[in-house]
């Protein structure tokens, strides 16, 4: 055996055998990887990468959406965006949406999730009720909330008038000072249930001994939430934050259904403005440039939040 072991030729052969076997295994596993990954990569490329590249290409062109020829204009559409007051107004509405529309559903969702997790009765029923708005189509939510706000027969105004607050009754969606927040309230109602369910799932993974230990150490409810629960659900928290924040910059449907961006342009968001320019006014290149801005802002936010999460994990 020693002789064999010292023979250089055989030594190499012995060393090669496992390598070849490993190579075969690697080849097999690469094949398997391809089988499993390729369909999703293809779907992603077809429905995400291709449209993204196509939109970018359109954003460098002047095109009315109908003519067979398109004119290459370079960065002109982006330069025009910088000087477009309506675009900046739309962006400011998105920023308000991002702040209020992110903080509110997360705060409400987290508070309700903690209440449910800490042993509330009828937990399953409440969870289902909170989640109900999430499964409703946005169009339905927009129409129903439009009725609630209706200045002629809306429940909200009727309530105010019933309790003597007649001065508060108004056309909530027709007043530029309230319209955006009125739409936001509907969107928050539609979103908070998602946050409740996600946070509840995260909370169920927390070791109860840690909470008990904190109690024994004299931590009050706020301290337990701050130092035990929140770190425990950090990954879920980052995920929910990412989804709601990125969604805030791409919001379109509920605004379109409830106000079409009005009154005037008081509720117009970047996505709505992009739609209006591309399909309403036939400036497809310009609308695509706005879409690219939305995509880039969303991408940056998503990457930043994911890196933040990874850093915390590390």
């Amino acid at each position, binding site marked *: 055996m020693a002789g064999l072991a010292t023979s250089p030729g055989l030594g190499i052969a012995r060393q090669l055998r496992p390598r070849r076997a490993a190579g075969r295994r690697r080849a097999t596993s690469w094949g398997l990887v391809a089988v499993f990954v390729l369909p999703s990569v293809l779907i992603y490329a077809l429905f995400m990468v291709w449209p993204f590249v196509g939109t970018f290409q359109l954003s460098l062109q002047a095109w009315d*959406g*109908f003519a067979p020829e398109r004119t290459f204009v370079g960065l002109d559409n982006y330069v025009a965006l910088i000087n477009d007051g309506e675009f900046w107004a739309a962006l400011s509405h998105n920023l308000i949406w991002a702040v209020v529309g992110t903080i509110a559903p997360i705060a409400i969702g987290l508070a309700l999730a903690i209440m449910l997790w800490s042993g509330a009765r009828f937990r399953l029923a409440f969870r289902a009720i909170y989640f109900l708005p999430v499964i409703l189509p946005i169009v339905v939510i927009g129409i129903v909330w439009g009725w609630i706000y209706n*200045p002629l027969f809306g429940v909200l105004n009727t309530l105010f008038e019933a309790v003597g607050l007649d001065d508060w009754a108004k056309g*909530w969606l*027709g007043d*530029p000072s309230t319209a955006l927040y009125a739409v936001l309230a509907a969107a928050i109602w539609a979103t908070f249930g998602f946050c409740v369910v996600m946070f509840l799932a995260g909370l169920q993974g927390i070791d109860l001994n840690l909470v008990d230990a904190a109690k024994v150490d004299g931590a009050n409810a706020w301290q337990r939430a701050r130092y035990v629960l929140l770190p425990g659900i950090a990954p879920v928290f980052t995920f929910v934050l990412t989804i709601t924040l990125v969604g805030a910059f791409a919001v379109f449907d509920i605004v379109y259904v409830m106000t079409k961006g009005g009154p005037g342009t008081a509720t117009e968001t970047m996505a709505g403005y992009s739609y209006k320019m591309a*399909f*309403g*006014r036939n400036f497809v290149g310009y609308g695509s440039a706005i879409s690219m801005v939305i995509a880039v802002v969303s991408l940056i936010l998503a990457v930043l939040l994911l890196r933040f999460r990874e850093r915390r994990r590390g």
Partner: protein
Amino acid sequence: MTRFSILAITAILAVAACTGGSPTGAAGPFDITFLVGIAEDPEVDQQAQAQIEEFNASHPNIKVKREALDNDQLRTIIQTRLGSGDVDIFGYDTGPGFGGVLAKAGLVADMKPAYDKYGWKTFDWAKARCTYSGVLSCLPGAVEEVGIFYNKTMFDAKGFKEPETLEEFRTIMEAFKADKIVPLAFGDQPQWPAGHQYSMTLSNIVGRAGMDARLYGEAKWNDADGVKAIDIFFRQFKEAGYFPRDPNAVTYEDANALFYAKKAAMVPTGTWLVAEITDNTDFEVGFFPFPSIDGSSISPPAGLGGGTFVAANSDAKDAAFEFIDWLISDEVTKKWSLPVFNVIPAQPVDTTGVEVSPLFQQVLDDLASSSGTGRDFGYNIDVLTPAGFNDQMFTGFQEVLNGTLTPQVQADKLQAAYEKAMAAGETIPKP
């Protein structure tokens, strides 16, 4: 494959190409997809479907499939649908920003051969709206007029007659306001209704010639008349409390519902709503044009509601033209268009023997001279003006109603939008 086989196959293909490329002379059957905006009243939409079924039953070689879409949706998908080649006929706005863009892109068929073949007697002014760069590209749809429908019972109870001056109109509105009845059911949540109201006041103040001058860039939208037209309806009427509370938050349907429910005395809209009004009211309804403003003419906006186009890449153009010819035939007009849909084709109409509602009869009488020769009709602006101008109209009038924009600034913005569109060649050319 031998040289003979190749030559033979090529010859067969060539002959097939010569005879089979067009349906002309072919027996069919042809499947035609007819894309239209959905009717506001579901009952009217059902009747429209029944009309198509009648055509299909009487024309075994042609099968028309009607596809009704929301008008906003129609605008966003029309290019894709035309490109995919699965649409043969479609209803669309005739303005330069709508049908004009499609014609410019070569997406719609030249309809002159069909006009010649079937001898359609469309009014010349209406044909002009369907002509882009000299090519007759559509068949004008219904003739429509924008005015004010009123509850005749309420008017009679107060001894009011149809107002002829703005002062009389204000007196009537003040009286209804005092009775806690909404004088004018104007809802502008969808934004486009404002364009109709502006068309009424501006058409009266400047007349048809003044409207032409603005459309052809010979007069300005922000002159004193232009500002006055905005000021009267969107500032003065709003501040006087003639509209429902917060009209920017009131939908078109809700405004109409106020009228049907007798909570509003009048509703300002177009004659396209006659069928729905007749279906939804149990009181007598009358119609009058917006009254004279400081001695101006009464020039109610009148024009086309849209047009019917045939796709350039349709492989059943002749069948499509045959279907259109049936749609505007005397027989169909008398059976469907006038009594059921209450629409008036843009051609001489023989109403003998047709039973219509009193309201529609009043509209017919009012539009009797709709060829444009007998009366000084104005224009419904938004079907003639480019998209950028319309966008400024729609958003800007909401801001004037809110008080965040003055009539003068809105007029200035309209002028700027029109100049920009003119520079881009998006406005209608002067004939």
